[in-house]
Structures are given as structure tokens and as C-alpha cells.
């Protein structure tokens, strides 16, 4: 055990520094890459585009240019419906900073028809406690003049009124 630290007389009765503030700010220009850019441009024209893997045949959404299972490029574009199944969801009761959402609200994973992976989105136009797995929903897009190459172009998903999808039809995506 070493000797204890002895402060110089001049510092002994003063409030010691216990911590320092070290803010860090770094600026970047993020580039989306080819696959993501293709997908987002599709969104800006109200199209949901997935990419099919040449090995396993699954359709990736949102597409990122590769199949995570097989590690190969996924170049085949597949146009998907803007309606699908709620595979799972969460009722959010906690506000987080920066959010203007009224509580409670529902965030869901929606599997568009034809896709093998889901998109995250809000589910609205239905009381939160009636939302359930297997519900058929459709995208509610922003107005045409507000379309942007980002997922905010889909405001939320709402029930279509169609009968629920049977669990067997989406169990692999849960």
C-alpha cells in the first residue's frame, strides 16, 4: 500500500476537481451506399423494394445489398406490396427525449406481402389495445408533395379490415 497523497498547502482547503467535461463533436457526411439509396429512392416514389438472395431465395427488407445468411450480393430487385401482416408489436408507455408522440402508441414489425423481413413502423387508426399479431395493415403515405427518400414517407400503418393472417403464415418471422 503506497503512502497517501499529500496535497500542497495551497490546495488543501479547496474544493478538489472531481471530474472534467470533455464534449466531443464529430461531423460526417454519411453515404448510404448503392442498395440503401435504391431502396430510399423507391420509397420516395411510393414503392417498397426488397432484394432477393440468389442462394436462399429470401427477399431482404430493407435491402442492404447482401444476404446476411449467405454473405452474397443481392441484386435482384423485388417490388413488394405496401400492405402486410403485423408480426409483432410493442405498446410504448414511456416518453423519450425528442419524441412528440402521444402515449401510449404502438410500434410494430410489419411484414409486407412478398417480403421475408419486416419494416418497423407505427400502427394507428385503431385503439392500441385492439392491435394484435396477424393483423393485416396497409401503409399510410404522406401526401405526394411530401414524399422524401426516407421512411418518414410512411406515416404509419392502419388496419385494412381483411381477416387476420393465420399464425402459420408468419410464424417464421416472429
Amino acid at each position: 500500500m503506497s503512502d497517501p497523497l499529500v496535497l500542497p498547502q495551497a490546495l488543501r482547503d479547496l474544493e478538489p476537481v472531481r471530474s472534467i467535461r470533455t464534449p466531443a463533436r464529430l461531423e460526417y457526411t454519411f453515404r448510404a451506399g448503392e442498395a440503401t439509396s435504391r431502396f430510399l429512392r423507391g420509397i420516395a416514389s411510393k414503392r417498397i423494394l426488397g432484394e432477393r438472395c440468389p442462394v436462399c431465395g429470401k427477399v431482404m427488407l430493407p435491402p442492404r445489398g447482401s444476404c446476411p445468411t449467405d454473405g452474397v450480393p443481392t441484386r435482384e430487385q423485388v417490388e413488394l406490396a405496401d400492405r402486410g401482416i403485423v408480426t409483432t408489436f410493442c405498446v410504448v408507455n414511456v416518453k423519450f427525449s425528442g419524441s412528440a408522440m402521444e402515449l401510449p402508441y404502438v410500434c410494430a414489425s410489419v411484414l409486407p406481402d412478398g417480403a421475408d423481413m419486416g419494416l418497423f413502423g407505427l400502427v394507428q387508426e385503431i385503439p392500441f389495445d385492439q392491435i394484435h399479431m396477424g393483423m393485416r395493415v396497409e401503409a399510410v403515405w404522406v401526401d405526394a408533395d411530401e414524399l422524401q427518400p426516407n421512411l418518414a414517407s410512411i406515416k404509419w400503418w392502419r388496419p385494412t379490415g381483411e381477416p387476420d393472417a393465420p399464425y402459420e403464415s408468419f410464424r417464421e418471422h416472429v
Partner: protein
Amino acid sequence: MRDVAVVAFAQSHHVRREQRRNEVEMLMPVLHRVKTDVGLDQSQIDFTCSGSTDYLAGAAFSFVMTLDGVGAWPPISESHVEMDGAWALYEAWVKIQTGAADTALVYSYGKASPGSLRDVLSRQLDPYYVAPLWPDSVALGALQARACIEAGVTSVGEMAEIAARSRRSAADNPFAQLQGSDDPDVLLKEPEVAPPLRRHDCPPIGDGAAAMILAAGDRAREVVDRPAWIRGIDHRIEAHGLGVRLLTSSPSTRLAGERAGVGDTPIDVAELHAPFSHQEVLLRDALGLGAGVAVNPSGGPLAANPIMAAGLIRIGEAATRIRRGEARRAVAHATSGPCLQQNLVCVLEGDA
């Protein structure tokens, strides 16, 4: 100790800015190339290890997305180091030594173009006493260069010769970012960018990726005719305080070199990760490399320096020359941190 060899190596064409492809799109061709070269698919790779830093992308855990290019299903044994890929190679080598793997895939990448590399690198410095001043990497390199020049270790003329030789050598390297047969006298007429450094004394900033496959013993002999055996590998780090270290020599490189067995028998080729021209002199001295050793035939980091991949590329370039029969015994070096703070040395040898 098990015999471990480099059996495949591939790298991207290093460019100032990869405008179109994201990191995964950049890596996939390189990953596929090494697996195809040895005829192994991911299910035959026992361990995967990557080296990169998320600070280049500005997104935490962004390195995880690169597994999309590996094909990580069924689940793989995998690790990552927030370091140059040379240290990912070290971890893979250790894994093989323990017997937990016979084959390993090592990869690394650096896409520096989205951010300001000089500012990003300042975040690796002592957070209490140094980082709040935001000294950039070139300024720190310049501090060391001046100390070396004033100590008589090198001169701006020797530094210009190193830069010119690097670019001439890179003319034969299709992957290098900077090539050309510049004359040292022409280079010396350029203005200093951070005195005493001129632009040619500094590494080019760019985007790039590299991948390598390691295999042990008989497995290596099964997949390729001429493995590049790793005869020794070691890495050492110095104190993090710049003012505590002696900047005019590289004791960590000297020690790592001794432990890796550099001095045991003559070296033909050295690939040294010296991002600044004066550092090549320090490394040569630390490793005891004589005039007969060909240094950086690839062009070295002065021709292409994709951050986080440049060290792994030195090992890959050295291994390539051995596998082609152009060299019998090589030393490859990788560095990390400001002013050669941490150094890895690897000795590679071909079969007799």
C-alpha cells in the same frame, strides 16, 4: 506451437473516396476472393475476426453490419478488435494456437471519407490531458519528425527519397492509391504542410478493405501449395504519454521484433507500416534491417493507407511475395496509436 500460415490474401483498390459503395459492399468482393482462392466456404472457417473502428463511420457497432458480407449462418465463432486488422490476425493466430480453430478468416476495412480523419484520430488520445486540445494526427507526426531530424536520425532529404521510392514501387501495385515515379528533388520543392512534413511525407487518406485466411499445419498444405508460415509474431505498446516516450526510436518495435525472431536468420523483404516517411527509418533501425532488405515493395502506407487495414495489408503483401517465391523470409509490421505507440511484428517464411 502450431504452425500457422497465411494461405490467402485480397485487398480492394484503395481510393480517396469510395463514393458509391458502403462498407459491406466494399468488403464483399474481398471476402469472396479469399474464400474462393482456397476453396473454403464459411462453414469450413473455424473462427472469424475483424479489425476496424466505428469512429470512421460515426456509428456505434457499425462494424457488425459487415457480417452481412460473411454469411454468418449457422452462427459462427467470431470476434472483433477496434484496431488494425493486424491485431485481428493476432487474435486469430492465438485462437489457432489454443487448438480451438484450424482455419480463420481475418478482415479489416476503413472508410475514412465520411468524416474528418484528422479530427477522428484525435479521439484516441489521452482524454484528460491531450484530447481536449484536439491535436491532429499530422501535427503529432510532425512533432516526432522534427525530433528525429534534430537528433540526426533522419533528414528531409532521406524522407523524400523514401516517399519517392514508395510511389515508384507502387507503380507495380494495382491496388495502391498513389503511384508514380516522383523525383525526390521535385518532391522537396513542395511546401511544407505541417513543418517539417511535406505532403509526400504523410499518408494518403482513403477508403479500402482487406481479408486474409489463416490455416494450421496440414490444413494449410491441403488448401495451397505454398503457404506463408508465420514463424513469429509479437506486439508491444509504449506509455501513452507522448512526453514520457522517446520519440526518436521505437523500443516497442525492437522488443516485438526480438520476440518474433526477426534477427534469427536473414530477411529478404520488409513491409513496414510507417504512415509517415520518417517512421520508416525508426522501424528499420529498430528491426535491425540492413541495406540488402527490400522495404515496402508494395509501395507501403505512403502509397495507400486505409486506416485499420493498412497493417493487415503489410502482412498480406509480405505473405504474397513469399507465396509467389519472390522472397524466402519476410518481416511485416503494423502500428497503432500516435507516433508508433504500439507495434506488431510478424516474421513469415516460405517452405525451403
